[in-house]
Each structure stands twice: as C-alpha cells, then as structure tokens.
C-alpha cells in the first residue's frame, strides 16, 4: 500500500503524529508491534502513576491523624490496585484506537523493517510512504551486573507486573524511575533501599532539589546508599561497594533502573544507511534524519527521554512535513518526578546557566511559607527556586519539590516560552490560596 505518511511505533510520538498528520489530510499508516500507547501508556508513565496513587491513598489513610482521620483495619490490596491500573490502561488504549479510527489512520499490528527508498516491510508485506517517522522508543538498559538474569530481578516493566509485595525491595539506580518505585513501595510499608552510584540521587536536577527529595523519601522510610556501585545480585542479597568496601543487603525483589536505551536494532535502520548519534538516531531540530523523507522523534533519538518531549517532537515533524516551519526547543522542556512530594522543574538551574556564561539572579523559598501547602502537607518539606537572567530579568528556570507541583509547572513553562521577564511576571495574578503562589513569592524574593 502507498501512504503519504507512515509512523513506526504508536507511543506518545507515534499516535500524536499519526492523528495530526491524518487530521491535515495525509493518508497515514501507524505500525505498532506491541500495544497502542507505547511504553508510556503500557509500561511506564500511566501504569506507574496509577499504582503511585494507590500507594499514596493508603499512605494518607494511615497518616491522617493530624487531620483527625484514623482508620481501623487498614489494608492494602495490591492486586486490586493492579486491576485499576489495567482498567486505566485499557481505557486509554481504547481511546487511542478510537482516535485512529476517527481520523482514518490505518493501524497495523506487527514489526516494521525499513527498506531503502522509504519502503517498509510489515508482516511480510511491503508498504511505501512519502515520509516515514521512526519513533520506536526505548527499553530499559541492562547493566552488566552478575546475577541480573534472575527471576526476582526486574526492570521498570517487570515491576509493574509484579502483583505481590516483597518483604524488602532493593532499587539499583536512584534516578527518576528508581525514586518513583522506591516511594511507591515505601508508602505501602515495604522497606526499600536505593543504591545510587552518584553522590546524589537524580543527578540531573538542581542539587538542593535532589537533596530535599531524598530527605522527604527518607522520612517515608526509604534508605539510600549513595556513591554505591552494585557488584553482584545474589539469590537473597545484593552486594555493593560504597567506596569503603563490599557490603551486602538482603532483598527479595530487585528493581534495576539504570536508564534506558533507544530501540534501534533489527529494524533495518543501519542497512538503509541511517546515521546515529552517541544517544540514538541522529535527527536535527526539525526531526529530519540524514535520509530524505525519513524522520525520527522521541526516545529513539536519545534526546530528553520524556513522553511529552516525544509528542512535541512528533508535532514538529508533522508541521515540517505539512509545510509549516517548526523547530524543536528544549529550553522550556518541563520534567517531573512523580514521587510524594513531586519534583517539577523547567529551564536552567543557576549552575547550568552560569556554565553557559549567563549571569543570573535567583531566589528560593521553602514551601512551608505557603498557607495551602502547610494546610494540606503538614509533615512534608518542599522548596521552590527561581533563576533569572541578570541582564534582561528574563525567567530562565523554575525548580520545585513539594506536593503536586507537576500540575503547576506548565505555568512556568509558558513564562519561559514567552520569554517573560520579572516585570511581566510580577503583574500576573495567582489564585489564592494555592500552592502555585509560591512561584510568585519566590519572584518577590529574587536578588
């Protein structure tokens, strides 16, 4: 079959691109080898947030005495939480399927192998398209740790399908994924130890934000071993070296969360001459690869590793294909850690800005000055930091840890995208009483 546009991979890049392109009148094909929605919907963002909410509900019920709420006979039914998770995923998948039908996108289930001249082999059948978007996503990285192949060692996909609670969870890797699962299990009273090779968790974040998050997770009972390299995973123990020597901890479930790798092999990419960067498929800021008519978006490019970045990259590609100049911008790309409390950041940290030679002014405030925050989170710390460019007063970054701050980071994102300055932001009205007021308060405190 001949298409205007073929999309390989139905994750947050793929289905967004397919819908947008079909909406613009292109005859569109969407190929997916597993399930519509990709990792995000089936093995990542969506199921993990469902289970995190289950754990959070249990935690609130157990720790509600400050609000005068006490519960007798409290229990956590993990399989039931999984059933809810599966329900959410089914509903969202049906939603995508419905969208594809509505927009008349042809959906084929199967593995696509690229051929030269924009031809694609799917289930032994050859198809052709004027433009092809590769968005085959990523998979958990498998570090070379002895013992990693055992049944009780899981990756982020495996742990989402584990319906029984372990006696003790060991998380290898204190990044975003590791912290979210550590928080989830600790919230339902499972002892958790996180082993992180770097001196601080979530090393890509502002250090003070990372440290605040770690302190809050420690309050929930998560134990962190920083600067610790895992040497071996045994049947009931994990051996690690914290610089002082080899140590062992016991655990019956081990989550390995040490990053992700782009899905680039076995799909004909190298055979047709696609160029790669050290992180994935090489694509420019329009999403164009070195081959004419072949585009790439999302995790497969090794940029950002975020579902919303993937969707935006896909929109950029479709805009360029349909004649609208559009380029990917990363300086207002929000990132969130869905722990309790949440971390939400956008833009540059003070250190990043200064590394780029930008002079800055900055401010910080603890969340504890915010009325709504302490009313709702009496036992939780939090922090908000704001970075401005000194010469122009332009907003460069907002970094938060506390409550459900993921829901308010878009405001800061819009401010950065619009290049608003302190002068404009000071005139914006924030609703009272909301946690979002912290952003304005920090602006007032910028020096």
């Amino acid at each position, binding site marked *: 079959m001949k298409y205007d546009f073929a999309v390989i991979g139905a994750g947050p890049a793929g289905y967004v691109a397919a819908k947008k392109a079909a909406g613009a009148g292109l005859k569109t094909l969407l190929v997916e080898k597993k399930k519509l929605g990709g990792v995000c919907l089936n093995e990542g963002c969506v199921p993990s947030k469902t289970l995190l909410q289950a754990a959070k509900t249990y935690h609130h019920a157990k720790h509600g005495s400050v609000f005068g709420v006490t519960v007798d006979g409290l229990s956590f039914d993990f399989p039931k939480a999984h059933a809810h998770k599966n329900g959410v995923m089914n509903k969202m998948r049906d939603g995508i399927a419905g969208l594809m039908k509505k927009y008349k996108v042809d959906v084929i289930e199967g593995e696509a192998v690229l051929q030269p001249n924009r031809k694609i082999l799917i289930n032994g059948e050859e198809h052709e398209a004027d433009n092809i978007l590769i968005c085959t996503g990523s998979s958990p990285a498998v570090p070379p740790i002895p013992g990693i192949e055992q049944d009780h060692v899981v990756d982020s996909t495996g742990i989402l399908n584990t319906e029984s609670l372990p006696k003790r969870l060991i998380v290898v890797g204190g990044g975003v994924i590791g912290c979210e699962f550590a928080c989830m299990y600790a919230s339902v009273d499972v002892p958790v130890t996180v082993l992180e090779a770097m001196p601080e968790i979530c090393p890509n974040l502002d250090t003070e934000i990372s440290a605040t998050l770690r302190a809050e997770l420690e309050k929930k009972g998560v134990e962190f071993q920083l600067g610790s390299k895992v040497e071996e995973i045994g049947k009931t123990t994990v051996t690690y070296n914290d610089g002082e020597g080899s140590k062992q901890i016991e655990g019956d479930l081990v989550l390995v969360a040490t990053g992700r790798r782009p899905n680039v092999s076995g799909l004909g990419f190298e055979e047709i001459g696609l160029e790669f960067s050290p992180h994935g498929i090489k694509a420019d800021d329009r999403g164009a690869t070195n081959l004419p008519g072949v585009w790439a978006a999302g995790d497969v490019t090794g940029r950002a590793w975020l579902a919303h970045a993937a969707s935006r990259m896909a929109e950029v590609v479709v805009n360029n294909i349909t004649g609208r*100049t559009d*380029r990917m*911008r990363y300086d207002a790309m929000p990132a969130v850690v869905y722990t309790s409390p949440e971390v939400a950041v956008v833009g540059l940290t003070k250190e990043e800005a200064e590394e780029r030679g930008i002079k800055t002014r900055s401010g910080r405030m603890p969340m504890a000055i915010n009325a709504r925050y302490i009313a709702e989170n009496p036992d939780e710390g939090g922090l908000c930091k704001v970075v401005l*460019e000194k010469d*122009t*007063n*332009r907003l460069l970054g907002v970094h938060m840890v506390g409550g459900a701050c993921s829901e308010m980071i878009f405001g800061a994102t819009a401010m950065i*995208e*619009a*290049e*608003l*300055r302190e*002068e*404009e932001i000071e005139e914006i009205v924030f609703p009272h009483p909301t946690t979002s007021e912290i952003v304005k308060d920090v602006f007032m405190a910028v020096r």
Partner: protein
Amino acid sequence: MATPIIMPRQGQSVESCILTEWKVNVGDDVAEGDVLAIIETDKASFDLESTAAGKVLALFWEADDDVPVLANVAVIGDESENVDEFRPEGQSSAPVAATPEPATPASPQATAAPVATPAAPVQASGSIQASAGVSPRARRLAHKHGIDAESLPGSGPEGRVIERDVEALISGRPRLSATARARSLSEDLESPGRGSGLAGMVRSQDLKVPGSVEGAEMSSVKGIRKVIAERMIQSLQTTAQLTLHASFELTKSQAYRKERLDAGQSKVSLNDVIAYAIVKSLGEHAELNAHFLGDRIATFEKVHLGVAVDTDRGLLVPVIKDASDLSIEQISSEVKKLAGGCREGTISPDNLSGGSFTLTNLGMLGVETFTPVLNAPEVAILGVGGIVLKPKRTESGEVEYVDTLPLSLTIDHQAVDGAPAARFLQSLVERLENNPGS
C-alpha cells in the same frame, strides 16, 4: 584657559579626516602630547595629540564622523569653563558622550542616557534630507516597536513616512517576546521575519545587529578600506585592462647584488633592482609613464614610481617622486623609508599620491603570477611574482635550469596598445637579464 583642539591638516590635498576612535572621555585629565583620538585620512591613520594640558571639557564629534580639517574637535581646560564658543557650527549643544563601550562610561551623564540619544547630528540631518522625513507620530510608534522609521517607504506627501506606514509594517511583523522587545530597544537590535519561539514568536536569541550576517563577524567598510574599494571598482569599471606576462632570468640580477656586497656597497633588494630597471626602461617607453584622462593623455617627463605596500590597515601605495633622477641606492633607501612610514602610519598623505607608474610584488608571499589591477588613472602597473625554476637552452644546445622571475604588466588598452607594452616588457627583461643596476 580653555583651549580648542583642532583637526590638523594632513597634507595639502586633505580636506577632512575620519575620527576613527576617541582615546579619552569627557572629564579625563590629559597632558600635552597625550593621544586624544585616532584619525584617518583616505590613505593613512594618525594619532591626534593634545596641544594643551587640563581636563577634557568637550568632545564635539563621535567616532566615525568625517571631520573637516581645522575644525574644533575637543576642548581642554579647567572644569568650570564654558566651551560653547568653540563648538563647531551645526553641532548640538549636548556634548558627545564618549566611547560606545559600556565598560568605561565617560561620565555620569553618559551612563544616564546613552540609548535614547539620537544619532550624531551629522548623520541625522543627512538622512532626513535624503527623504521627505518622518512624521512625529510615525517616529514615536516606530520607536516603541524597535523599527527604524527612516528605512520605511513613505506613503505621505512626497514620500513622507507617516503613522500608517509604521502600522502596516507592525501588523505584518512577528510578535516579539517581552525580553526580545526590551533587548531590541535597549541594544538597537533588529528582529528577523520569523522567530524560533512559539508559533514563530521572536525570542531574544533571534535578534541580530542590523545588517549582520549569521555566522560572520561584521565590520564596516571605512577609512582606507573604503578608499581601496572605491578605487579598485572604479579602475576595473573605467579602464580596459590587459595583462601581458613575461619572465626574466635572475642570474645576473642576483650576481649584481652579490657583487655590490662584495665591493662593500650598500645592500639592495631584488625589488630595488626591478624598480630601478623600470625607471630606466620607462625613459625609453614614455607612453607607459602616463595618465589616461578620458579625452587627454598626460605623459610624464619624469617617473614617479608608486610601490604597493601591505599594511595592517590595507594596501597603501607610497610614491617615489622624481625617481628618474635617483640612483639605485637612493631608490632603495626611499622605498625603505616610505614603506616604513606606511606600516607605522606616519606617512604623509602627500607621499601617497602623484604616481605615474606602479610596481607591485607578491613574489615573497609565494605567488607565482597574478594580474595586477591598474592604479587608475595610471596606464600601466607591473606585478612581480615568485622565483620559478625553468629549463633554458644554452648556446651549446644543452638544457640547464635557471631561476626566473615572472613579470605581469597590466596596461590600460585605452591609452596603450599591446605591442608597445610588449616592447617595454622586452626592454625591461633585457635590462634585468644583461645590465641590472645600470
């Protein structure tokens, strides 16, 4: 007592000088002989030195202004003295506020209002005269949006730019972010047709210096560069240039130079030997020692030999006046002296004009041959290339290798034909091959 500093006259032919850079700010203390500014004629650049000691009370011109000679450029004196009596005609009463570098503000006033000050009086009046002007309302609106109203096509009477013209431009322009708008106003930057931000919004990183080219460092064409550019294009547009190539065997010229040294005489360069031979050969071929003036040809009695010199500021051509009266030693020392003056910037503009024939040499830079461009209205220029090893058949019929030097003679075919030019080259080659230095 307040003392005015004037723009000195740099040679008889110079009517104005470009003030390229101020070295002092209003309020600075200076001593007699301190350098106040760098000034540049179309031929060379000079230091403008203070002729008095005291405080700098006023600087009447801005960098890059073209200042008439003998006009007052600055006033030196005591703090309280009035400078108005020294102000050149047509200059506004606001003293020009010093250097453009923000790092060294001249005075409190200078930092207070550097941005809103309109361009130098000279420039502003010039551009207003050039068009039918801009209405005040149009100018206000344009300024608010960072638009140069002067550059718009006007739809008012006699092409006057009116508010409607500015509005038309704004409605078709991309939106500027708050930061971009503030920066474009404060730093006089301009925005592209479409920005890299939301839906084509112009972000501050998209702004550029007016007239700049992406990925390139910009510099303005002024001073010597401007003069060279004008002269070169004028030369190529108004003359009929034809280049003849020949070469001469170096053996005897080199031997001549060595003999001089062995005999204890002064050292002369190969270029001096060639210059001397040119002067001698021109004596026999006067039609190449001439200016083509359209309806007349001026054939000179004596040879005034221009010698192209490469300097930091660009190509300069000092002239050895009456070279036909000079010995080879004298020519050699004149060339040295004039070239040194060009490189140090101390050469008098009077030494940079009046040539009748030009010699240019790129041989030392590894160039084999090139086609020189005429120094119009001169009708001929000789280019010298680099040493080339060539086979030569000796009298006995054997082949040996000799060093040769290529010569390229460009002539203005309006004034000189190919054959006489070739005969001049032949005579020159003959002289250099057989009787160098005589």
